[in-house]
C-alpha cells in the first residue's frame, strides 16, 4: 500500500508504480500464453461441427428422454461389479500402500534409497490414470472385472500412500520415544507408537479413496475392464440413447449413495 501526494491531496493506492508495471507484465505473459494455446486448439478444430453442436445437443437430448426404466433391471449385475471393482481395488491398494508409505516417510524409512524408490512408486502410480492402467491390464489379464480391479488398485496406491506417509511424518515423536523408553524393539515401536497415531488417517484415506474409486470404476468398461462402463459404451455405440440416460441416472444414484456412505463412515471414525 502506498500513499501518493498529488497537489496537496493524498491518494491511496494498492501498489507502487513499479509493482503495477511488474504486475501488468505478468498478466501480459499469462494472457499471451493462453491466447497462443487457444490459437493452437482452434486451428485443430473443425468449426463446422462446433456450430452444429447446439442442434446435435438438442437432438441427442430429445432422444434421451424418457429413460428406458425397464433397462435398469439389467444394470443390477454391472452395478454390483462396479462396486466390487472399487472395493476390492481399494483393499489391494491399502495392503500395498501402507508398507510403501512407511518406506516413504522420512522418519520411518529403513534407508534413503528405499525412500526414493517408494516415492517413485507413488508418483508413477499417481500419474498414470486408472483408464490407462486398465488399457494395459486388459492386454495382460484379459478383459473383465479382474483387470479393472487391479487397475483401480494400482492407481490408488500412490494416492493412499502419499496421504498416509504425510501423516506419518507429522506424528508426535514423544509417544514413540515413550514406547522406546520401555525397551521396545523397532517393530514394537512401530506397532505401539506409530500405528495407533496414524490408524484414523489410514481408515479415513481408505474410505475417501473408495468413494473416488466408485466414480472411476464406472468408466473402466470403456476399455473392456468390466463394470457399468461396458454397458455405457455399448449403448452409446449402438445409439441406444434411452439406455444411455438410464445408465447415467444409475451412475448418478450409485455415486450419490457412495458419497453418503463414505461421509457417514468417516464421520463415525473421526
Amino acid at each position, binding site marked *: 500500500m502506498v500513499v501518493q501526494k498529488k497537489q496537496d491531496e493524498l491518494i491511496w493506492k494498492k501498489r507502487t508504480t513499479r509493482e503495477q508495471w511488474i504486475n501488468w507484465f505478468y498478466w501480459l505473459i499469462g494472457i499471451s500464453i493462453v491466447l497462443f494455446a487457444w490459437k493452437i486448439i482452434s486451428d485443430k478444430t473443425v468449426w463446422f461441427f462446433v456450430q452444429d453442436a447446439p442442434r446435435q445437443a438438442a437432438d441427442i437430448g430429445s432422444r434421451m428422454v424418457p429413460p428406458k426404466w425397464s433397462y435398469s433391471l439389467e444394470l443390477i449385475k454391472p452395478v454390483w461389479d462396479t462396486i466390487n471393482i472399487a472395493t476390492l481395488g481399494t483393499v489391494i491398494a491399502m495392503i500395498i500402500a501402507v508398507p510403501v508409505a512407511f518406506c516413504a516417510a522420512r522418519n520411518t524409512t529403513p534407508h534413503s534409497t528405499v525412500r526414493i524408490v517408494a516415492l517413485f512408486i507413488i508418483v508413477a502410480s499417481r500419474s498414470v490414470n486408472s483408464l490407462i492402467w486398465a488399457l494395459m491390464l486388459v492386454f495382460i489379464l*484379459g478383459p473383465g472385472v479382474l483387470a479393472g480391479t487391479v487397475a483401480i488398485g494400482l492407481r490408488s496406491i500412490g494416492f493412499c500412500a502419499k496421504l498416509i506417509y504425510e501423516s506419518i511424518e507429522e506424528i508426535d515423536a514423544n509417544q514413540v520415544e515413550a514406547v522406546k523408553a520401555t525397551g521396545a524393539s523397532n517393530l514394537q515401536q512401530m506397532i505401539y507408537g506409530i500405528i495407533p497415531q496414524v490408524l484414523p488417517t489410514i481408515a479415513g484415506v481408505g474410505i475417501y479413496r473408495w468413494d473416488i474409486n466408485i466414480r472411476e470404476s464406472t468408466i473402466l468398461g470403456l476399455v473392456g475392464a468390466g463394470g457399468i462402463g461396458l454397458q455405457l459404451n455399448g449403448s452409446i455405440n449402438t445409439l441406444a440413447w434411452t439406455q444411455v440416460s438410464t445408465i447415467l441416472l444409475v451412475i448418478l444414484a450409485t455415486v450419490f449413495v457412495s458419497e453418503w456412505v463414505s461421509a457417514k463412515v468417516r464421520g463415525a471414525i473421526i
Partner: protein
Amino acid sequence: MNNVSKTLYPNNWKKPPFIKRSWLRWSIIIGSILYLIAALSSMDINIQRVLEGIPRGQRFIESFFPPNFSDNRGVVWEGILESIWMAIISTVAGIALSIPIGLGAARNLAPLWVYMTCRFIIAASRTFPEIILAIFAVKLFGFGPFAGFIALSLGTIGFFAKLLAEDIENSSPAQAEAVKATGANWFQWINYAIQPQVMPRMIGLSVYRLDINFRESAVVGIVGGGGIGATLNTAFSRYEFDTAAAILLVIIGIVMVLEYASSHLRKWVQ
C-alpha cells in the same frame, strides 16, 4: 505375614481394539468376510486366461523397453504439446467459469435461489468423470482437442467452484464488514475484502488443477478428445509398445515437475 494380601499389578497388557463396541467390531468383521466371499465368487476369474496372460504380460513388458522417444512420425512430442496447451486453456476457461459459480455457491454472498442453482451445477459437474463428459463432447463437437477442452473445462468447474465456495464461506466476516463499512460497492467489496482472503489458496489450487487437467488430458484422448491420450491409444492399437512406454514416461516426468512446481509455488504464495 502370610495373610497380608499382595497388591496385584497387572503384568500383561493388551492393545485396546480400534473399534470399541464388540458387537459392532464383530459384525463388521463377519460382514466383510461375507462380502469378500460374495464379491470374489461373482467375479468369475478365468484362471486359465490369467495364466496364459503371464507370459504374454512378460512379452508385453519386454516390448516396452527400450522406450522409443524418437518415433519417426514425431507424434510423441506433438501429442505432449497438444496436451499441454489443452490443459492450460481448459484450466483458464474452467476457472473463469468457476469464479461466478463459486461466488454464487457461497451461502454468505448469494441469495438462496442462486445458491441452490450454483450448487446444483457443481454437483452435476462433479458426479460424472471427465471421460464421460468427453464422450458427449466428442459426440457434439467432433473429434479433436476442442472436445477435450470442453470436457476438461466442465470438469474444472466442479472442482474449483466447490473449493472456492467453501473457502469464501470460511473467510473472516470481520474484514468483509470493515470494507463494507467504508461504503464500497459490491465489486469493490469482493475485490478488496473477499479476494485477498481466498487468493493464496486459489493460486495453489489452480496449479494443482493444471496438473490434474494434464493428467486427464491423457485419457480424454482415448475416447477421441485429442491430446497425448489419442497418441497413446494409437500407439497401443498399433502394438507400438516402445512408443507407448516413452509416452508414459514423459507423462510421469511432466507430472513430477508440475507437482514439484506446485508445492513450491504454494509455499511461496502462502
